[in-house]
């Protein structure tokens, strides 16, 4: 059992108690990540209701992902300047407005603005990266990695629970009502973010040993720090692999004779084991170094993918593949966030993690796009699978030289 950690603080209201703050932070992560993962269920009903080709909805979701990536560093800067809780609340409002537009418009341009741009920015502002930034400032250093793990696991759990709820609601109440209900759920982020205001309090804002640099200087110094650049390059690979599998694994399985229902089970297994993997990675990161576990995760992903595509594809190998991949899925997140904190402290962690995450999203875009593009050219997904294997080995290598200590420029003044 993990040893109980303690921290001294002045008298605070009950809703700033660690138990409450952690619980509400996890709920925010669940709602944020869970609701955005349901949008795939609305592709057909919204396209059919508006007599749109599939492209209009797809473009909106592509824009949403792009905006999520681009807005994340900005969200991080705002969180570091005004506090994570306020940014989460603003994100919830944008998320809600974007979903209202999504539910009510039949005009493609407005739909792209709402479902694409506004939701994308809203998701970035209320994402679990911002939650982790809040938790990172509240929990003591020895519990930080664990807190990142539980926040990531909560996001994964949100994905797992909101998907069937959305699907069942569409059947029971229709897509329009379901979308409005889910939009209302995004507003839950606002009250649940209130306890995270504790991270703005004077007792938690700047801990001993934090840098006195300005934000602009901190960003410049971070990009001049070799380990940060290596970490950013490695996270690109994570995005590439995950996005490729999410979008292209179901059709790949169908091509190999795996039933639609078994494919559904296989994808659900990723989600379920992801909760365990993310949590476990947080524990591992808290007990020792973070770069070696990260390196190992990328090696294991490469070995796993190579084994999967070289062996005959059967329901059994598919389930083994997706379950194991689930364990390695977002397990990179607590370790990556942990490394950012080790190198730069907590003062600019949201901003600096934001740039690392942007690299992840660029990788995601390429994983999805190249998957389709190379399939059209070669008639098979094999080139992209092998690209993922090679990139995994590359990521494993680039993590090895990372120095796990506070960067000189970020050391205490």
């Amino acid at each position, binding site marked *: 059992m993990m040893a109980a950690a303690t921290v001294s603080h002045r008298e605070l209201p009950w809703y700033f108690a660690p138990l409450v703050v952690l619980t509400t932070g996890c709920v925010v992560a669940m709602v944020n990540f869970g609701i955005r993962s349901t949008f795939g269920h609305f592709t057909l009903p919204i396209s059919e209701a508006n007599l749109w080709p599939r492209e209009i909805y797809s473009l909106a979701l592509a824009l949403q992902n792009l905006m999520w990536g681009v807005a994340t560093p900005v969200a991080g800067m705002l969180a570091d300047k005004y506090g994570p809780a306020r940014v989460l609340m603003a994100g919830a409002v944008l998320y809600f407005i974007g979903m209202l537009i999504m539910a009510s418009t039949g005009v493609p341009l407005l739909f792209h603005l709402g479902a694409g741009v506004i939701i994308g920015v809203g998701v970035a502002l209320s994402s679990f990266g911002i939650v982790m930034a809040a938790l990172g400032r509240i929990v003591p250093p020895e519990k930080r990695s664990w807190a990142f793990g539980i926040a990531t696991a909560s996001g994964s759990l949100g994905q797992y*629970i909101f998907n069937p709820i959305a*699907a069942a609601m569409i059947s029971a109440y229709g897509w329009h009502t379901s979308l409005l209900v889910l939009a209302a759920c995004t507003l839950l982020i606002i009250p649940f973010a209130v306890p995270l205001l504790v991270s703005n309090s004077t007792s938690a804002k700047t801990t001993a040993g934090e840098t006195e640099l300005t934000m602009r200087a901190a960003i410049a110094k971070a990009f001049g720090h070799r380990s940060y650049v290596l970490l950013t390059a490695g996270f690109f690979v994570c995005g590439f692999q995950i996005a490729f599998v999410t979008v292209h694994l179901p059709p790949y399985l169908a091509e190999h004779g795996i039933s639609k229902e078994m494919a559904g089970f296989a994808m659900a297994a990723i989600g379920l084991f992801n909760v365990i993997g993310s949590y476990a990675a947080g524990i591992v990161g808290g007990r020792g170094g973070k770069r070696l576990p990260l390196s190992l995760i990328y090696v294991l992903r490469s070995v796993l993918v190579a084994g999967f595509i070289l062996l005959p594809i059967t329901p059994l190998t598919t389930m083994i593949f997706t379950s194991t991949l689930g364990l390695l899925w977002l397990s990179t997140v607590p370790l990556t966030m942990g490394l950012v904190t080790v190198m730069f402290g907590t003062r600019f962690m949201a901003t600096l993690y934001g740039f690392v995450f942007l690299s992840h999203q660029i990788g995601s875009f390429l994983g999805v796009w190249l998957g389709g593009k190379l399939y059209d050219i070669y008639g098979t997904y094999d080139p992209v699978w092998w690209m993922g294997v090679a990139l995994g080995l590359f990521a494993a290598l680039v993590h090895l030289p990372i120095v796990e200590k506070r960067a000189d420029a970020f050391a205490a003044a």
Partner: protein
Amino acid sequence: MTTFPGHRFALALFAVVIALWLVVMMAIMRNAALPPDATGPMLVVFEPGTTSQSAFAAITQAGGRPIRETTFGFIWVVDGIAGNFEAQGALGAYRELPISPTIAGCVAVADAKIAAAFGL
């Protein structure tokens, strides 16, 4: 001095979330249940333990057309009249859901059992 929670907290949090999720899913499934005169493709759920052959026989006796069997033999996707399936022993008939029929069927069974137990 404040004590920070650990693994027990994580386990309890996730258990509570899963429990709430099941309640919400059951409530939604209840609303997805079809009235007796509903027709078309639907998910029919029999008593757990019903064999695939028995379920198939009940579906055909109800004048329904089996579309596909799920992982569990007591949950089928069929075409027909909802009331007829229930007359042949089905626990319920539901709109075909855009999620795994097996998962939907399992939630529907839980809902039907709770409804029967509490007379809902």
